[in-house]
């Protein structure tokens, strides 16, 4: 009995690995589109950056403030633990989803209320969002400002006015590094799966693969989400892991 269950566990985990890997990489290919969250208080600039991104084949969500961005991401909730629960967390989200899945955040520096720098800090301080690359835009190229942003973990600092070549470069960079990120996350996922099949009952089915970039997707933030930057850090919390697998 004992040896049977060990064998079946191992077999289950291997099977799951096979199941998980291919959908994972498949959804990576399916979701070629980069989803960018653009933050700028200027209506003119929002229109321009939106167009620049769309022309570069990116999906765009534009928001006019740092607070708006945090709300959309679902970062304004008390705790990340709350986000993984099934009840609709953020009252500000219309569809009751836990947060928008984005691949890249591009934000203006000078904004009333919360500056781009403060937004950057909040994102980098969050364990589920700090993997998301953040790019800062500014019309003032003050060295101290640039240094501060880069030190805080900004991917890049772009001088305004933003051009098509800037956006194309960003996108290419993101696509190139996405490969690396998804390899990292799937190797983490393998480890997690192996461990889980020993810890928890093997009735756990693979979480839903949700490649859809649509923000109205009601599925929980999948640990196998092809939005790879989020997944590695979400593996850290055991409580969350167990909560996730109860979603059969």
């Amino acid at each position, binding site marked *: 009995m004992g040896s049977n269950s060990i064998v079946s566990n191992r077999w289950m985990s291997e099977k799951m690995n096979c199941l998980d890997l291919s959908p994972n990489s498949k959804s990576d290919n399916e979701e070629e589109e980069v989803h960018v969250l653009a933050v700028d208080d*200027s*209506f*003119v*600039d929002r229109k*321009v950056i939106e167009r620049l991104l769309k022309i570069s084949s990116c999906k765009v969500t534009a928001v006019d403030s740092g607070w708006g961005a945090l709300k959309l991401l679902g970062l304004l909730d008390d705790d990340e633990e709350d986000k993984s629960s099934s009840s609709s967390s953020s009252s500000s989200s219309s569809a009751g989803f836990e947060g928008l899945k984005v691949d890249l955040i591009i934000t203006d520096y000078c904004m009333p209320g919360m500056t781009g720098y403060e937004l950057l800090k909040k994102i980098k301080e969050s364990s589920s969002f700090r993997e998301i690359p953040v790019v800062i835009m500014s019309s003032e190229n003050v060295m101290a400002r640039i240094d501060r942003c880069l030190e805080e973990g900004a991917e890049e600092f772009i001088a305004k006015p*933003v051009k098509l070549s800037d956006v194309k470069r960003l996108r290419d960079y993101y696509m190139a590094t996405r490969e690396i990120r998804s390899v990292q996350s799937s190797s983490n996922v393998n480890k997690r799966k192996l461990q889980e099949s020993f810890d928890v009952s093997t009735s756990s089915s693979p979480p839903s693969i949700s490649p859809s970039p649509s923000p109205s997707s009601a599925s929980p933030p999948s640990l196998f989400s092809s939005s790879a930057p989020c997944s590695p850090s979400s593996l850290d919390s055991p409580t969350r892991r167990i909560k996730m697998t109860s979603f059969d």
Partner: protein
Amino acid sequence: MLGWGVDRLRADMNRLLAMLFHQGVLDEQFLQLQQLEDESSPNFVSEVVNIYFHESEKLLRNLRGLLMDREFSDYKKMGTHLNQLIGSSSSIGAKRVRNVCVSFRAASEQNSRAGCLRALELLEHEYCYLKNKLHELFHMDQLRVLAAGVTYPPQH
């Protein structure tokens, strides 16, 4: 037959644009915006520019309101408005308006009310010139589109 109208309009538009570039009223960012126009977004430039006009006029009114107040002292607020104007002007390639705003901001940083008033006059002047010229440009473009839509003789 109406083909020559389209070509002429296009030539006039190009001449106007060249003049605006030569005068430093517009810079290459405006060209960048034109490159973002396509069949899916054929009026992108005029849409953005109209948003810019709308926003700028609000800011200009605010600036004038601040300076007309005898007890005005909020140079910081003035600076905030100017930063917004500088940003949006550079985003559409309105070089001269942008530069005037930068000097305006310098005057506000020196807390010089007289300097600010002078700068505001200049800004309003530059802004009006830009708006008139861009309206001219868009008007010509509309005519060009209309003219291009007519085929002569009618196809059957």
